[in-house]
């Protein structure tokens, strides 16, 4: 094409060189007519590079011609005009060429634009198509995931395990050969089996229901029969009463008591049940006789049953009542304005109110003395109290010093260590007391009875030590676990108190009542005599100068009883301050001595007085006598007399003093002194009757 274009142009250039402009125009006209639109097609045929060359060349030519015209004009010759004309024509030709080139350039530009536009449209179409496709892909993907996430209902069904399925399902359902390899088929088979089983179970359920229905009906029938039986039985019971009475079989009486027991508050009820049970168990153990014959422990309920019943009314009513009464109370207070003291007093009374019923427990000891215990329940404080009374078979002469021994206030004091029954065991009570201005329960104890800890335990009430406002429920097992020990303790307490009582009666008359089975503990001849046995106050005891050690050791609490004994022989007077622990005789009485003879001698300045105290206090076990060692106090006092004899008789004689010894040595001693602290031979050896050192 380029060769063609170059061919075409060549003649043109030549023509433009040689031929006149008209000719050329003509020809182009004809050409234009021949090819209706030549230039547009021409553009395609021409090389733009060549056109550019042509353009450059034309411009050069024009420049050259212009320069020549200028040159000619300046020279201004004759023939210059011709030459100029010639040149002008050439220039015109060149301008024509330039114009042509310009047109061509325009056409090319337009063409280029068209092409670009076309291409752009194509690209746009493709782009749109691509987007459509992408969207389609996305949609399809979504569909796929939806499909994948589809959950069949069967997955929720709990199927039997595979092994079980193959073991139990019949082969026509399990189809092992098919299902083994194909999990889909397998699942289908398993579902089939499940359906089968469920159908069966539903069947069974229906059967059971009908069965139940049947049984219910039967029960109904039997109930009717039983209720018709009750009146008949009652009539038989009524008829049998005379027979019971005749045969001394108080079943009915016991029954009545149980009936009353139903109205007891829970703690008293627990106490009642447990004591009755324990009493029966004891009686059974002791003899094969029927239980009613041998009663060391008898239980009874006392009090107004109707009042107790009234207390048991449904709680809503009582609450209403309370609120009503509260409102009334408010009104009345507004109206009457009673003094604050009266109001507080009423509140106190209300707080300390006892349950109308009480349990009476009679504990009979071997010597026919009876300990009467009355248990009360303080409803608002949720504690139990006890009042004790001891009656003896024979009338006792009450020694002055024994005043406190059997008093209801102290007879049960410290049954367990530290349990003096003067503080409320329920920590919650203190808050209640604060409200009504009660300082301590101690002031009311005489009236209400003592709230000993063991009483609470017998009633199954367990109070935590450091948790106020803790719900306390009556518990049978707690009561049962404490029953036996407590009953035993109660018995020993009464017996030991009675024994002390008897001993005190003789002691006050200066007689140390050594029983025959303890005689072997002492030599036959004892010269020292007890001359005084009096009770003293705790304060007086603590003020004595020779009891400081005991007080400092914390052995002189105010729950103990205190006595002063005086043992005399000749001019020697031995004072003994005695601490009697309420736990006598498992806890021995403690003696502190002060001898007035040739100056005052106490354990501080005389090792042998110290040894005598130790003999009585520490070595008391050999003085206990036969079990239950109630004679301990007597034996200790007798021992003290013996010790004083030994002390006085073995006192080394002062050579410088003239005259016979005041106390000639009558006791047989192996040696007078022994050891670095020069102990005297205080130990008595029974069958031989001599004294030796410990």
């Amino acid at each position: 094409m380029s060769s063609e274009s170059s061919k075409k142009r060549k003649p043109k250039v030549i023509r433009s060189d040689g031929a006149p402009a008209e000719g050329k125009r003509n020809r182009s006209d004809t050409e234009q007519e021949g090819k209706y639109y030549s230039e547009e097609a021409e553009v395609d045929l021409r090389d733009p590079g060549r056109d550019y060359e042509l353009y450059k060349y034309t411009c050069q030519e024009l420049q050259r011609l212009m320069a020549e015209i200028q040159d000619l004009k300046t020279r201004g010759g004759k023939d210059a005009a011709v030459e100029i004309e010639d040149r002008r024509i050439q220039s015109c030709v060149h301008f024509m060429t330039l114009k042509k080139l310009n047109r061509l350039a325009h056409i090319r530009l337009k063409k280029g634009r068209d092409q670009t536009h076309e291409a752009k449209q194509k690209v746009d179409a493709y782009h749109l198509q691509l987007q459509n496709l992408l969207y389609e892909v996305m949609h399809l993907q979504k569909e796929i995931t939806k499909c994948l996430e589809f959950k069949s209902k069967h997955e929720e069904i709990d199927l039997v395990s595979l092994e079980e399925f193959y073991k139990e399902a019949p082969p026509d359902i399990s189809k092992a050969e098919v299902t083994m390899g194909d999990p889909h088929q397998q699942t289908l088979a398993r579902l089939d089996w499940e359906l089968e089983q469920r159908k069966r179970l539903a069947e069974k359920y229906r059967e059971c229901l009908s069965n139940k229905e049947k049984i219910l009906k039967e029960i109904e029938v039997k109930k009717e029969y039983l209720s018709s039986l009750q009146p008949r039985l009652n009539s038989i019971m009524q008829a049998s009463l005379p027979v019971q009475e005749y045969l001394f079989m108080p079943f009915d009486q016991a029954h009545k008591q149980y009936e009353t027991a139903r109205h007891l508050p829970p703690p008293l009820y627990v106490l009642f049940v447990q004591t009755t049970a324990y009493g029966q168990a004891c009686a059974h153990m002791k003899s094969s006789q029927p239980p009613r014959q041998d009663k060391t422990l008898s239980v009874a309920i006392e009090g107004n049953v109707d009042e107790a019943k009234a207390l048991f009314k449904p709680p809503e009513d009582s609450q209403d009542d309370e609120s009503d009464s509260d409102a009334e109370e408010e009104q009345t207070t507004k109206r009457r304005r009673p003094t604050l003291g009266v109001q507080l007093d009423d509140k106190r009374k209300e707080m300390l109110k006892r349950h109308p019923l009480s349990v009476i427990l009679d504990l009979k000891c071997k010597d026919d003395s009876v300990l009467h215990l009355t248990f009360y329940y303080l409803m608002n404080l949720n504690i139990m109290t006890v009042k004790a009374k001891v009656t003896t078979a024979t009338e006792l002469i009450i020694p002055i010093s024994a005043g406190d021994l059997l008093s209801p206030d102290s007879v049960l004091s410290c049954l367990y260590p530290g349990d003096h029954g003067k503080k409320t065991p329920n920590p919650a009570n203190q808050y209640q007391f604060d409200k009504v201005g009660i300082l301590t329960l101690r002031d009311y104890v005489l009236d209400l009875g003592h709230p000993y800890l063991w009483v609470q335990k017998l009633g199954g009430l367990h109070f935590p030590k450091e948790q106020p406002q803790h719900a306390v429920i009556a518990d049978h097992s707690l009561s049962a676990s404490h029953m036996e020990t407590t009953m035993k303790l109660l018995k020993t307490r009464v017996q030991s108190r009675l024994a002390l009582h008897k001993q005190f009666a003789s002691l006050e008359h200066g007689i140390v009542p050594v029983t025959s089975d303890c005689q072997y503990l002492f030599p036959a001849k004892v010269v020292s005599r007890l001359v005084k046995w009096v009770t003293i106050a705790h304060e007086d005891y603590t003020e004595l100068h020779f009891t400081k050690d005991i007080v400092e050791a914390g052995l002189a609490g105010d729950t103990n009883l205190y006595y002063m004994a005086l043992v005399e022989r000749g001019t020697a007077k031995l004072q003994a301050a005695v601490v009697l622990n309420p736990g006598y005789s498992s806890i021995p009485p403690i003696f502190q001595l002060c001898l007035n003879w040739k100056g005052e001698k106490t354990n501080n300045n005389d090792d042998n007085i110290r040894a005598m105290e130790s003999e009585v206090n520490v070595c008391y076990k050999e003085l206990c006598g036969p079990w239950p060692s109630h004679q301990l106090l007597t034996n200790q006092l007798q021992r003290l007399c013996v010790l004083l004899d030994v002390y006085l008789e073995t006192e080394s004689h002062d050579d410088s003093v003239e005259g016979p010894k005041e106390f000639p040595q009558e006791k047989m001693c192996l040696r007078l002194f022994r050891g670095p602290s020069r102990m005297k031979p205080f130990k008595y050896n029974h069958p031989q009757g001599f004294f030796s050192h410990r």
Partner: protein
Amino acid sequence: MERAMPQAVPLGQMEVLQALQRLHMIIFSQNVSPCGKFLAAGNNYGQIAIFSLSASLSSEAKEESKKPMVTFQAHDGPVYSMVSTDRHLLSAGDGEVKAWLWAEILKKGCKELWRRQPPYRTSLEVPEINALLLVPKENSLILAGGDCQLHTMDLETGTFTRALWGHTDYIHCLALRERSPEVLSGGEDGAVRLWDLRTAKEVQTIEVYKHEECSRPHNGRWIGCLATDSDWMVCGGGPALTLWHLRSSTPTTIFPMRAPQKHVTFYQDLILSAGQGRCVNQWQLSGELKAQVPGSSPGLLSLSLNQQPAAPECKVLTAAGNSCRVDVFTNLGYRAFSLSF
């Protein structure tokens, strides 16, 4: 919660019995371990308690460190006397002497190593042993007490080699004269006898109660304690506490102390004595009372000076007697604290 008056807590049976036992305890003997850090104390119930002096003296001592590390039942009767060799603790009281290994005691495994009983003549009552004395030169132990004799036991073989006769009543105390192998013994009969160990003979007798200056007939004749230093001897008991010059057998100083003394010892240029009464008395040799340091017991029976060079920080004076407490004096003028059973 009830606002009751403060009161003594009522005690259970066991607590009362324990309190009574403690109340009536007498500590008869004490001895410092060879390492100087421990103190053994024996009481009238036959128990020996081991206290750690180093723990109780340390700056971070608590109440527990004043309680015994170990307490064990050593004898049936009271433990009247104890001495220590470099490995053993020897204790005696009711007629027998028993040996315990210090190393084992401190490990709390208290099994007696051996026990010996001197040959007694009487069988009715076993005589007690009031005093033990080690004679390091002979590697022997001298026992004296209820049968009025001094028994010498060879510690190597454990046999009783000789018995020294002479006292007419039981013997309270023994003392060794370091330079010449001579032993002093004082007894209930009021005599101080000087024995020569080489010849096994009595060399000298001082019957103290016969000297008017020091005799106190209302207190009895008995010699309860004695100590010796070169030619000097100090003894006391029923008669007044007296300093004697041995070679001339004359009393040189009589110490003005009314109460009978139960223990006496020389300490540097002082004499320490204790007995009836709460105080540890310190005397100048001239007879002046230098100081009286009160202790916590109503009567003292033994003093022990811990002078073991191994434990200079535990150099203390301990005193024990009619109580369950052992008073510890860190310097001579002041009771620091009490160890307690």
